């Protein structure tokens, strides 16, 4: 497999048309005791580009996410944000630099209305008092902008569907981070229709042109629909990096099946 083009940083034709490089990961390795979780990872994503990061359980996806979001420090290698080499000190530090993640649990509070979730821990205040009206207006505008259809920003999140909840979490991250957005399995545990809504949301975010998106997923066909480029992570290495137009679900499945056969 390693004879597949592993050179993640080789520009390809499909890279043109995207904006500046928002994030580049070079030669990242990470060990946990005797276990090598990641080996010489090279990855990049440009503004306006959606990168699909595929990989089986245990391939190292979550370790890689946690390094990009500042949760883990890599043993070696470097991370460049907007071309600047940066040592990410913490999740908060990464977030302040514009890297945010929407995790599977979404970090929403069911009991609070949509707009308070949208501004959770970033509430707008006048003196000690919350500016409910202003937060409602801004949350409503931000959700409209990404085309999220919810009944009212005053509705409790509890009352919303899985797709709407996901959309709120995405919109919240976009609203505050807005440089590199990692979506961790946004389509897991979601029906076809709701999954479709999320894919359309990702499409609209791509059209803004200023946001680089890394989509972590299992479902290859959905990923092929929405991603500009696909990376395959196997046993801690990126073994495949190609524009989705130049590959197919069949090819990806074949690569993964080959892994099983040799295992």
């Amino acid at each position: 497999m390693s004879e597949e083009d592993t050179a993640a940083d080789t520009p390809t034709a499909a890279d043109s048309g995207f904006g500046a490089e928002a994030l580049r990961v070079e030669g990242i390795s990470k060990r946990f005791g005797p276990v090598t979780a990641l080996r010489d990872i090279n990855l990049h994503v440009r503004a306006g580009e959606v990168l699909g990061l595929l990989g089986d359980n245990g391939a190292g996806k979550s370790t890689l996410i946690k390094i990009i979001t500042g949760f883990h420090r890599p043993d070696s290698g470097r991370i460049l944000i907007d071309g600047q080499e940066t040592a990410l000190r913490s999740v908060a530090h990464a977030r302040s630099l514009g890297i945010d993640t929407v995790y599977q649990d979404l970090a929403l509070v069911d009991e609070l209305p949509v707009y308070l979730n949208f501004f959770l821990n970033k509430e707008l205040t006048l003196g000690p008092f919350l500016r409910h009206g202003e937060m409602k207006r801004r949350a409503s505008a931000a959700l409209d902008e990404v085309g999220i259809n919810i009944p009212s920003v005053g509705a409790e999140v509890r009352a919303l569907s899985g797709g709407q909840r996901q959309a709120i979490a995405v919109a919240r991250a976009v609203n505050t981070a807005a440089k590199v957005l990692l979506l961790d399995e946004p389509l897991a545990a979601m029906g076809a229709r709701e999954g479709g809504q999320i894919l359309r949301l990702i499409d609209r975010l791509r059209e803004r042109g200023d946001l680089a998106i890394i989509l972590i997923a299992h479902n290859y066909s959905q990923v092929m629909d929405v991603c500009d480029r696909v990376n395959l992570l196997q046993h801690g290495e990126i073994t495949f990096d190609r524009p989705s137009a130049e590959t197919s679900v069949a090819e990806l499945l074949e690569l993964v099946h080959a892994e099983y056969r040799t295992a």
Partner: protein
Amino acid sequence: MAQETPQLVRGDEQRGSRTSVSRGLGSALLRRRELSIVLVTIAAAVYFSAGSYGSSFDTTNNYHIIMQYFAPWAIIAAGESMLLICGEIDLSAGFTYAFIPFVLTSFYNQGLDVPLSLVLAILVAMGIGLVNGLIRTVFNLSSFITTLGMGFFLEGMTYIQSGAEPQNPPITGGLADVLGGWRWSELVWALAIIVIMQIALSYTKYGVYAQAAGGNPLSAAESGIKVNVVKVSSFVLTSLFAGLIGIIDQVRVGSFDPTSGGSQMMFMAVASAVIGGTALLGGSGTVIGAMFGALLLAIIQNGFTLSGVNAYAFDVVIGVAVVAAMLLNVYISYLRRKYLR
């Protein structure tokens, strides 16, 4: 899917014209849980004032008696409802109520003047809440166990401090008037604390964080909210309120009584909060609701006394009311999920 029932959508006033009155009331009841308890409270007041003893119910003196039940329950319930919203509970509040007056007298008996003794006693009350909160959060011990232990500890300390004898409050003059001496001062304290805490809940970050801490602690922490700080603050507030009303209530009576308060006081406060619509598992509730819960219990207590109903029957009614309120809460939550989307 979102537009199927727009007329029931929260805060969707523009479509109100399409809503029939009964439907509007129904959805208002779903949206504002405490509205149902307000209606029940009004019904209870109407019932007792229409009864054969109604002439003795509708007197200023009787309102004053109702206030004597209402004020301590409501004030402690203001703290308990914040704790319940955070997903915690303070079983020691009634013992703090009994203990703090004797802390005041012990400072006073050591030669300190009344204002300083009062301030120190209040600080001790807040310290009790701080210890409750820290044991809860630092050692991750459930608040049920933590505050149960604190309750027994304080009960014993109260008897040790007092020698199991009532004592005369050392507070006199204008300060005594403010702290329970004036006929209605307890009511003013209760309403002031309720209003302040409801504003804190609805209009400050503390309120949002308390709801987040109780509703989904993990999400709250992921968002960077200091969940433990919010919880400890709520423990401190509850103990502060319990200690303060312990002094005020017993200055009004004219005697610091080591047998006052206790678990009965705490249960009434928690019952007030629960009847007022606060979820025991955290995340939602209101202080205003707790106030109406306390008012309802006070009116029933008083009404039963006037109508000569056996005092034991009161406990039966409270028992039924608490369970019924919880069932109603669960049912309303179900209806909300079904219709308010």
